[in-house]
């Protein structure tokens, strides 16, 4: 079993994180922004699991990644509920057009 060096996992994680950041900044749709955030959370999990490979006795990194997955699931449900409310109120999902708090 050949060991892949930990730097390669970190490079893949950094690439996915930066692509997720670009998606979250440039998308013109609220759910597009949510896709970028999910991608960033996954990229962070890659780092945690790559370092957890070197700690097989009590795998702290994998447990942390498990809690990150739980928080991501909770976050996406609440965000989708808010997006549906915003769409029902403003009839649009473009973040640039939602520019008033009181209507």
């Amino acid at each position, binding site marked *: *079993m*050949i*060991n*892949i060096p*930990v*730097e390669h*996992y*970190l*490079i*893949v994680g*950094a*690439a*996915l*994180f*930066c*692509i*997720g*950041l670009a*998606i979250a*900044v*440039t998308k013109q*749709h609220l*759910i597009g922004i*949510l*896709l970028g955030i*999910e*991608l960033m959370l*996954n990229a962070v*999990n*890659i780092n945690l*699991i790559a370092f*957890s*490979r*070197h*700690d*097989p006795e*009590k*795998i702290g990194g*994998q*447990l942390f*990644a*498990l*809690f990150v*997955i*739980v*928080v*991501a*699931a*909770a*976050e*996406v*449900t*609440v965000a*989708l*509920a808010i*997006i*549906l*409310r915003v769409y029902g109120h403003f*009839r*649009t999902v473009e973040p640039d057009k939602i520019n008033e708090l009181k209507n």
Partner: protein
Amino acid sequence: MNMEIAAFYGFSGLAVISALFILFSRNLIYAAFALFITFLGVAALYVLAGADFLAVTQIMVYVGGILVLLIFGIMLTQKADREAVSSTPNKVLVMVKRQVWGFLVAISLFAFLSFIITTANFKMTGETNISRSTIKTIGVELMTSHLLPFEIAAILLLMALVGAAYLALNRNPVSHD
């Protein structure tokens, strides 16, 4: 060429290429399916790093739950574009300022992170040859030393369930005229 190395670079290339497809695609449904491929690639990277339980959890939670939810959200919110008729002006696809800044920030952050990672020179200790399953270790750790975060996660999920159901409730159905 070792099989494991080929699998690692193949799956990481798959994940990165489909993530780039999300970034450049204009159709959000295609972007969601590209995110599906990215999640599968990331799950394969988990398997190659020895985290079998996390890979299965990733597939079940992300692909089975979150992605279905996102596709539902896209379908529920994209009905407004169907009203576009020939009298509406065409959209001119120019790079707005936000896109320029987004690409600039992302590329510079990636350059910065890869510089740090390549110059960090990690001295890793510990055995990396994981050939047994991690499920037993995860179960024991969750029930002993990580019991408080486990319970907090349970309460968080319950609160998110109740809060999402309350938020998505249609409180004034007559205002949709």
